[in-house]
């Protein structure tokens, strides 16, 4: 992990501005992401955390142009200065897989079960880098070796169902890294895996970051994985950013009551057993009809009258931002 005070002054690699993602459903418009802003530079590692339905996945789907047909994204997502939102699919395809790679949540279904691993891997390099088949295959074998798949020359000729879940996720990671992307988006890459494999995948990604200065967006609800891999954290709630800061700021000085609740709900080994698990009472708001003011108001232990208005984004000198009336200079 990079020291938090090492400021990266280069132009942002990805800059997301006022991103809105909505879905037309028979019940009405679902507001999955609302007015989201963040940016990251080459080599940065940003974690987006939040509970299910907080809009983490749809945020990156919108950036990748992979929203489902009833989805609509507004706002800007500038990648190396070009707005991905305004690109046609053909234009997006010159970046997707090459400069921006994505690792999906479910390794069991995200690989094509009808094609051998080699075919699925070499098509990426052949398409983006114009390598011939044998060069592409050699590259793919090297990549599988890099993610520690034993006997890659033999394994690459197998089908996905011949791999275990952890192995498949490693294949997914290897596939994402084939073209040495500038940005790797990993959507809950370790959620489906057991703890030892989680650690391996996590190590793999930090090694990648150190070796090739790849920027990473890690989507997760596992705060343990975040600490090992990322330097900044964006906390999302009901489609909004509620807090953003360095890992240290978020873990040791959380300003937003939601972040505080989230951290308090992480089970700890040093807790006496009989205290049970902490949880935040209540449920996230209905995305079909979001409340006007603070969206966390109904579940917030510190809610007061002012919360009926939308709270401002507060920012301190250490680039720690949070959307709440509380926690200011006082």
């Amino acid at each position, binding site marked *: 992990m990079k020291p938090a005070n090492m400021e990266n002054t280069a132009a942002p690699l990805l800059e997301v501005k006022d991103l809105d993602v909505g879905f037309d459903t028979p019940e009405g418009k679902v507001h999955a992401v609302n007015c989201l802003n963040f940016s990251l530079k080459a080599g940065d590692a940003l974690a987006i955390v939040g509970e299910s339905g907080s809009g983490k996945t749809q945020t990156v789907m919108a950036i990748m142009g992979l929203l489902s047909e009833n989805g609509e994204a507004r706002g800007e997502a500038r990648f190396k200065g070009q707005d991905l939102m305004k690109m046609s699919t053909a234009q997006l395809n010159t970046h997707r897989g090459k400069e921006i790679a994505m690792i*999906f949540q479910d390794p069991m279904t995200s690989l094509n079960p009808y094609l051998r691993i080699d075919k699925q891997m070499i098509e990426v390099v052949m398409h983006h880098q114009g390598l011939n088949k044998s060069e592409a295959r050699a590259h793919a074998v090297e990549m599988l070796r890099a993610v520690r798949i034993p006997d890659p020359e033999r394994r690459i000729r197998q089908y996905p169902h011949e791999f275990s879940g952890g192995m498949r996720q490693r294949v997914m990671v290897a596939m994402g890294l084939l073209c040495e992307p500038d940005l790797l988006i990993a959507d809950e890459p370790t959620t489906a895996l057991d703890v030892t494999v989680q650690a391996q995948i996590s190590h793999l990604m930090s090694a990648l970051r150190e070796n090739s200065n790849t920027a990473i967006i890690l989507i997760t609800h596992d705060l343990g994985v975040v600490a090992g891999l990322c330097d900044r954290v964006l906390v999302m709630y009901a489609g909004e950013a509620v807090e953003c800061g360095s890992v240290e700021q978020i873990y040791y000085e959380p300003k937003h009551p939601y972040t505080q609740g989230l951290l308090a709900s992480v089970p700890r080994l040093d807790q006496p057993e009989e205290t049970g698990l902490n949880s935040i009472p209540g449920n996230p708001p209905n995305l079909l009809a979001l409340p006007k003011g603070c969206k966390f108001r109904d579940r917030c232990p510190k809610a007061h009258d002012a919360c009926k208005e939308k709270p401002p984004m507060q920012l301190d000198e250490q680039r720690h931002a949070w959307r709440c009336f509380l926690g200011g200079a006082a």
Partner: protein
Amino acid sequence: MIKHSLQRLLGLIPTMLMLITVAFFLIRVAPGGPFDSEKLLPPEIEANLNAKYHLDEPLVQQYFRYLGQVVVLDFGPSFQYKDWTVNELIAQGFPVSATVGLAAMILAFVVGTLLGIAAALRQNSGIDYSLMGFAMLGISVPNFVIAPILILLLAVYAGWLPAGGWDWSVANMVLPVITLSLPAIAYIARLTRGSMIEVLHSNFIRTARAKGLPESVVIRRHALRPALLPVISFLGPATAAMISGSVVIERIFSIPGLGSYFVQGALNRDYTLVMGVVIFYGMLIIILNFIVDLVYAWLNPKIRYDEKR
């Protein structure tokens, strides 16, 4: 794979035995006999005939006699078509039916899948709705309605094609092949559309798109194979039905195929002919289903058996 294939072929024996047994006794249970006609035969002649064809023996003895013949693929003489054996009737009719049926099936598969894919790629558009509307029409309008309409339009009014008859010329095949393939085109188009839409929403298609592959490659390389699986499993029995001849089509277009023997044999209590075509059709279905299974395994790696590593 080879071991599995042999096992499957061995399984053919009990299935066929079952089929033969049930068909043999069912047709005997039906009232009447092969020599019944409006003018009763003199009893002596009928007795002679029965003796000639072994119909005077106990049924079980006849059954085993018949089994002994079938084992060497001798279906015996036809009762109704004098001087013809059932083998000769099948050998004469099947090539005609098979030609028309196979041509219709190939046409149906190519056109049906293309239309289905086109509809799936433009889901809920005007193209999709009109294609599926026509498909519904193709499934629900029976071919004894379509055939006369096509004859009227293309043969009688336009005069482009002969209205019927058979001389192995392409012109003679066009109308029956089209008529026979229309319902299959419609069915395959609907099947393909449904499975294609399902596949396009699967996670691995999203992965393929995230790789930055052009949509045409995504469809051809990643979506086509799984989308065709349900169509392939439909093809086996459908092909068997089509190449063994359609009574309606062969009547309307005066084609000397196998189809009419099914009905004529049953109506005339032509025991050997009925048994012959039933067994022939049964073998056809089993063999085609077997081929479908092989194709299926080739398309879907997950169900390949004892694959060598």
